[in-house]
């Protein structure tokens, strides 16, 4: 039967290519393993992932979106950069309004700017990753319990996500640890910084005893390295400081210093199902990792929605996704909250280490070991989203 | 009557070295005036000073009674002084036709217009063709100036300088590197295009000089040592000393 095409619009070249290509391989694997090999959906129709390079550029993404639509694709997955996600959501809403007969759904697997599920929310946008505020809520819980943190330095990429991280950090710290002083709040251009040493020096000089950053891709590698070199030995609370070459480059330097907030526990593995999945993936992609478990959820939930809807029509599928309850490979219960299309799921905080790691990252011997977990229900935050629903 | 060009105490130095050391010179309207002198005497420099390519270190230059000292070249050109160059200096990629047409555009008052279409300007193009006829390049009009032979380029050089119908024309060694026959053609061409105008020229070929010039000035190491009619110049001992040498007999 005819394949169901899913456009993957993310960077496959440029400074964030690594993040993008890894995401791509994970989508392809998930689609094959969890859908196609299981006989596809809607009576044997397979998923086909169509990679479209957007160089993390909003403009380029719209170009690719137009192409995808041109090829009659109705499902778009994207994650790298909230900047892109905002642009895509906006464009897709417009498109759906103008062409009710060829609507498109955006399945966002990583762009976590809270705006996307609040003021900028759209009926056609579903987010499978936890919002920046949710994640920060979790991180700050961890910080709260670490009483010898007195001064915090916040550094991030100068765009909506980086700003979101900073603002929610300030907000939550203010609520949970008013005594903590924010000694620095820095935004640097995204993907353009050659050398992070000056920033590291600055952090060092500020006397901070903890760092919070949402940096990802090349920007995380650089920052991690630079901080290591200044010999600054303080905990670093991050969103994305793992895999894609980051773990490898940070290596010993980050041991027990770098903490990361994420979904889907890798070490220790939750259960054999996941073990099997992860091993299978590594077998196919030895130099890549299951770095974004949410991708699995995207694929499985989409498949489920189609089956329930008994159709691939976006409008129908969207109806199903809204409020869908689902049990992930990890056996975790998650729900796609209808009022803002934010997936409510358990959140984990892990530490960068090489001790009892089952699945390491970048084949470096180092990996992320879960330290604490916040139950799905506790992660939920209020939303201001008022989305206009079709008819 | 006012003189076409009047130099008063013109001085030019490059860094420490003074090249032009106080030149006073009157060039009468309508005369053909030749400037001769040893190499490096400053003839071309003098041209550059008058035509605005170099700025004066001292003194003043008047064109038809109006001061033009240190004006930019285009201003001076607009006041009616046009020149050619010792080393050929054309618009190599453009066709011969275009070269001449550009030489005509300002005087024909198109200025920086971007609302005329040059190809539509009948009389402009007619004039261009006339010039091309005069300099004998009509049949080469489509050729890029860059690929013309040396002699042709010299002719075009003169053509552009004269096309605008400026009433003072300055030519720097117009016949340099030409064979005898070519030189003869050049001479008659110069005669034709400068008819009824003032001509100032630098030339080493005494044949040409004595043939064309009404008056001759001799420039030696930045100073005019004599200004006079060809005959007197030829018999002027100082001049023979400094410049002509044995050549005097030959010519």
């Amino acid at each position: 039967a005819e394949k169901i095409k899913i456009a993957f619009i993310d960077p496959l070249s440029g400074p964030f290519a690594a993040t993008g290509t890894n995401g791509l391989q994970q989508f392809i694997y998930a689609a094959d393993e969890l859908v196609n090999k299981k006989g596809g959906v809607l009576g044997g129709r397979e998923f086909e992932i169509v990679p479209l390079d957007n160089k993390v550029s909003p403009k380029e993404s719209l170009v690719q979106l137009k192409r995808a639509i041109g090829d009659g694709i109705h499902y778009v997955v994207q994650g790298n950069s909230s900047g892109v996600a905002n642009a895509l959501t906006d464009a897709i809403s417009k498109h759906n309004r103008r062409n009710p007969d060829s609507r498109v759904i955006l399945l966002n697997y990583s762009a976590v700017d809270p705006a996307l599920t609040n003021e900028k929310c759209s009926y056609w946008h579903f987010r499978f990753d936890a919002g920046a505020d949710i994640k920060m809520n979790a991180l700050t819980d961890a910080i709260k319990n670490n009483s010898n943190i007195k001064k915090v330095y916040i550094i991030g990429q100068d765009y909506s996500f980086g700003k979101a991280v900073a603002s929610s950090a300030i907000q939550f710290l203010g609520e949970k640890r008013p005594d903590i002083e924010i000694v620095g709040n820095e935004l640097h251009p995204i993907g353009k910084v050659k050398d992070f040493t000056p920033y590291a020096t600055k952090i060092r000089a500020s006397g901070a005893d903890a760092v919070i950053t949402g940096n990802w891709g090349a920007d995380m590698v650089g920052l991690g390295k630079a901080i290591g070199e200044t010999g600054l030995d303080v905990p670093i609370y991050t969103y994305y400081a793992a895999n894609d070459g980051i773990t490898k480059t940070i290596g010993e330097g980050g041991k027990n210093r770098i903490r990361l907030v994420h979904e889907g526990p890798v070490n220790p593995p939750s259960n054999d199902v996941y073990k099997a999945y992860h091993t299978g993936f590594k077998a196919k992609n030895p130099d890549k990792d299951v770095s974004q478990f949410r991708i699995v959820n995207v694929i499985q939930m989409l498949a489920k929605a189609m089956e329930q809807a008994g159709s691939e029509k976006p409008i129908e599928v969207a109806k199903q996704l809204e409020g869908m309850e689902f049990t992930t490979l990890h056996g975790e219960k998650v729900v796609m909250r209808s009022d803002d299309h934010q997936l409510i799921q358990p959140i984990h905080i892990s530490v960068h280490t090489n001790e009892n790691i089952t699945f390491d990252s970048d084949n470096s011997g180092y990996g992320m070991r879960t330290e604490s977990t916040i139950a799905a229900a506790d992660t939920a935050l209020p939303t201001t989203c008022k989305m206009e629903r079709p008819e | 009557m006012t003189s076409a060009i009047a130099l008063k105490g013109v001085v030019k130095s490059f860094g420490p070295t003074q090249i032009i050391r106080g030149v006073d010179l009157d060039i009468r309207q309508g005369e053909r005036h030749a400037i001769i002198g040893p190499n490096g005497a400053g003839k071309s420099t003098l041209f550059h000073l008058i035509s605005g390519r170099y700025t004066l270190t001292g003194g003043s230059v008047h064109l038809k009674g109006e001061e033009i000292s240190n004006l930019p070249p285009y201003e001076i050109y607009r006041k009616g002084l046009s020149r050619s160059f010792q080393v050929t200096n054309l618009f190599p990629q453009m066709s011969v036709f275009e070269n001449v047409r550009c030489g005509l555009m300002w005087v024909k008052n198109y200025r920086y217009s971007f609302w005329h279409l040059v190809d539509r300007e009948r009389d402009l193009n007619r004039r261009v063709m006339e010039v091309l006829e005069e300099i004998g390049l009509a049949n080469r009009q489509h050729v890029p100036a860059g690929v013309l032979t040396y002699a042709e380029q010299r002719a075009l050089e003169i053509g552009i300088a004269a096309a605008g119908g400026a009433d003072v024309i300055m030519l720097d060694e117009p016949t340099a590197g030409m064979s005898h026959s070519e030189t003869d053609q050049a001479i008659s061409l110069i005669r034709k295009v400068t008819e009824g105008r003032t001509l100032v020229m630098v030339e080493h070929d005494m044949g040409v000089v004595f043939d064309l010039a009404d008056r001759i000035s001799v420039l030696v190491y930045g100073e005019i040592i004599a200004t006079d009619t060809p005959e007197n110049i030829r018999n002027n001992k100082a001049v023979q000393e400094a410049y002509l040498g044995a050549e005097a007999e030959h010519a």
Partner: protein
Amino acid sequence: MSELLFFSLLNGIVTGLLLFMLASGLTLIFSMMGVLNFAHASFYMLGAYFAYTISLYVGFWLGLILAPLLVGVLGALVERYGLRYVHRWGHVAELIFTFGLAFLIEEVVQFIWGKETKAYHEPEILQFSLFTFFGQDFPAYKAFMLLVSIAIFIVLLLILTRSRIGLIIQAAITHPNMTAMLGHNVPLVFMGVFGVGCALAGLAGVIAGPALGTFPGMAVVLGSIVFVIVVVGGLGSLTGAFVASLLIGLLQTFAIALDYSVSDLLAVLNISVDAESALRDLWALSLPQVAPILPYLLLVLILIFRPTGLFGKRET
């Protein structure tokens, strides 16, 4: 504060001298041969990757020697079989050529080494901190970087001043035939100089790789900054390039280090502004923010007021 200033000074010098390693090569290629070599940074990247691969087998130090040589040879070949033809069609053609080349090299690098950042590390012996000041480490490797680039500067300076090579190039650019007929082997000179230029870029790559990370984007992030240096320093002047490199290195690091913003300034002059106006970004504008544009600002100003650059003699 003093800690910040001190280390910013160090970082500035390190960054500057690193930039100089690149600029030195471009001084030969761009400001002497007049080739607008947009692939220069790409050769720098190749240097890093070659060195990385070599170091996997025979270690860092051999990589430090071999990689630049390889890149140099590669450069020479590029000149011999590519640029030499293109040269006839003028600067823009050369520019496009190198443009395409940069494109190619980046693709090929991804093709061969993939897109992830490579774990290319400093050699063990240099992995200690040279000194600790205000409790902040200064890695020995950076000191090593300083030494190398100063060495490059001195050696090049000697070569250029002691030999006629500079003159010959300059002559050959405008009058290749005449130069040849005076008995100078023009093609060889060009090939050699271009090769050396690329080798220098390669060397810079080898050394920068471990410090700044070895990934396919490393050429792009450098952008056109190297051209800025060469032009600001003044075409044809190695000393100029050296000074300009330091200048820009310091400029950037200090801009990041010093957190002052327009509003601070206004506050000093106690002018108050409303924070919501369309110009709000202007008031919020802070030094770290503008850090990336300072070099270009410098470039434009220099060119407007001193078109020959700081030490240069000619304009084009």
